[in-house]
């Protein structure tokens, strides 16, 4: 692993630890609204009327932005990792089954994947999020429904190749069942590109989740997520720009770390380029 990938991994771990610890240890409740007039829209590095110091200032209700941002990190990371894991799991299953058994089911699955890939992922997300009730579980589900296709294609291609390899042939000849051959011998060897796609997918999922939350279609306030915090600062962008800009910085740093880590993994695990261009928010 190269130096920048180690930094990225360290940053993600540090963020996870901070997200768990800081809101739990903070003396102020990040959701509570007390003295709005005395504490609202305090600039970064300044004290409010009660003398409390806010590293990144406060929002319009006088809530500390840094603490809320780290609380939001829990949700953003959970939704990003959860959505991406689920999408990868579905993709691996569909891709492996398609590549292994081929036939009509394969054509149907790849046809559906093709059609879903033709709709820009954000539009598909918006369509699903608009039709169902917004909230974190919906977002995870929708991320999975709209994210499995590229993984399925990568894994399918991998499985098609592996099917012709001698060790798969010899497993067959020695009487290992179809299912067991697929599960024990083929899938583990086809996971390389899926792991790369997963790592890059977490960054993408976090971006998309924040986009949905920004539009009011994701995690709903008062529960903070980076997207809805940015949305909360949108109409204050002229008078108190830090409210919208601060959560964006941590969001960019997180997505950046995922990209760097994914790139490093790709160089190690897979020789091919995983399409990332088509999926960003």
């Amino acid at each position: 692993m190269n130096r920048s990938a180690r930094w990225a991994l360290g940053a993600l771990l540090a963020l996870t630890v901070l997200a768990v610890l800081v809101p739990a240890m903070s003396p102020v409740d990040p959701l509570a609204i007390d003295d709005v007039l005395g504490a609202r829209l305090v600039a970064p590095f300044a004290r409010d009327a009660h003398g409390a110091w806010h590293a990144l200032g406060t929002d319009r209700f006088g809530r500390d932005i840094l603490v809320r941002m780290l609380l939001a990190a829990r949700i953003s990371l959970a939704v990003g990792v959860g959505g991406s894991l689920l999408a990868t799991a579905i993709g691996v299953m569909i891709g492996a089954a398609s590549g292994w058994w081929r036939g009509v089911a394969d054509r149907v699955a790849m046809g559906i994947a093709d059609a879903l890939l033709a709709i820009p992922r954000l539009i598909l997300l918006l369509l699903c999020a608009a039709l169902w009730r917004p909230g974190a579980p919906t977002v995870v589900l929708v991320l999975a429904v709209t994210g499995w296709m590229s993984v399925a294609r990568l894994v399918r291609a991998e499985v098609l190749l592996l099917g012709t390899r001698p060790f798969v042939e010899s497993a067959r000849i020695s009487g290992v069942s179809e299912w067991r051959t697929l599960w024990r011998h083929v899938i583990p060897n086809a996971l390389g590109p899926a792991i790369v796609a997963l790592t890059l997918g977490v960054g993408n999922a976090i971006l998309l989740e924040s986009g949905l939350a920004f539009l009011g279609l994701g995690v709903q306030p008062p529960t903070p997520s980076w997207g809805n915090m940015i949305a909360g600062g949108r109409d204050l962008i002229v008078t108190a720009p830090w409210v919208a800009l601060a959560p964006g910085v941590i969001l960019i740093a997180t997505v950046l770390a995922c990209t760097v880590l994914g790139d490093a993994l790709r160089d190690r695990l897979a020789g091919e380029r995983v399409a990332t261009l088509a999926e960003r928010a």
Partner: protein
Amino acid sequence: MEGHYVVVRVLIQRGAESLVRFWLVVSLTFLLAHLAPGDAAELLVSPSASADEVASMRRTLGLDASFPEQYARWVGGVLRGDLGESFAQREPVATVIARALPVSLALGATSLLLTFAIGVGVGLYQGARRGQWSDRMLTAAGIAVFAAPSYWLALALVALFTTGAAAWGFPEWLRLPAFGIRSPASTATGWSALLEVVRHALLPVTVLTAIGAAGIARYARAASLDLVGSDWVRTARAKGVAERGVHGRHVLANAVAPLVTLFALSIPGVVAGSVFVEGIFAWPGMGRLLLGAISARDYPVVMGVTVVYAGLVIVANALADVALYALDPRRR
């Protein structure tokens, strides 16, 4: 002649494939809308409406028909260019979309062209200076921009050109407007009207171009590194072709095929970016239309916009495929 024949055959083949994909998209859109909980008829009648009124609204909307019947009506309508009627605007969806589409196409096409010019230029520059300080800085800047959400970049630009412009005393010509496609109550015509639209377009185009170019530059750099290491580049160098000529002619010419593919690949990104960018800069395009329709629960418009977006992506992909055959003689 042989070559032309292949291009025509590929054109027909891709056309057929595209039609099948489009039909799948149209069906999936219908299925998703059908699976959604809630009843569109109940959204349209007043909250105090009786069951009879809801039932008559369902009849008006055609929701009382059977599933296959509704499906057939939707697919048939799409084929005739009839996407139903907007709940919110009481107008055919096709009319509403036709009004918004040119704005989005102009914004998207301008950004896409700039994205390519800048992205390819930066990528080739980095490829030629691989490992040097400028290459490393550009790579870092590129992945940082690529990691930024478009709506955040847009808001940052708005902050820069409002609060920042006041604080740091930007000159008059740099005070760019951040909202709408023209100034409110503007009476400008002719060239000054065009200039006004261009000034309004600068910030949205900058956001879309920055994100797109960051992605393209990454690919262009990787592609040019692959090519720079190849035998024929060594031959060109050995022949005494100047460095500029090596990169400008030999590398660029061979990078055309991956770039065409990339062009098609980057269209969904521009579409997605434009949704947020149009929303924030208040541009009356398809993205803003979609966002408005979602918050108004105007399902026919949501479905219509989805189908049109998907159609654009499918057509772009098919054209890119055909262009590959037309441009690259080795494929025939």
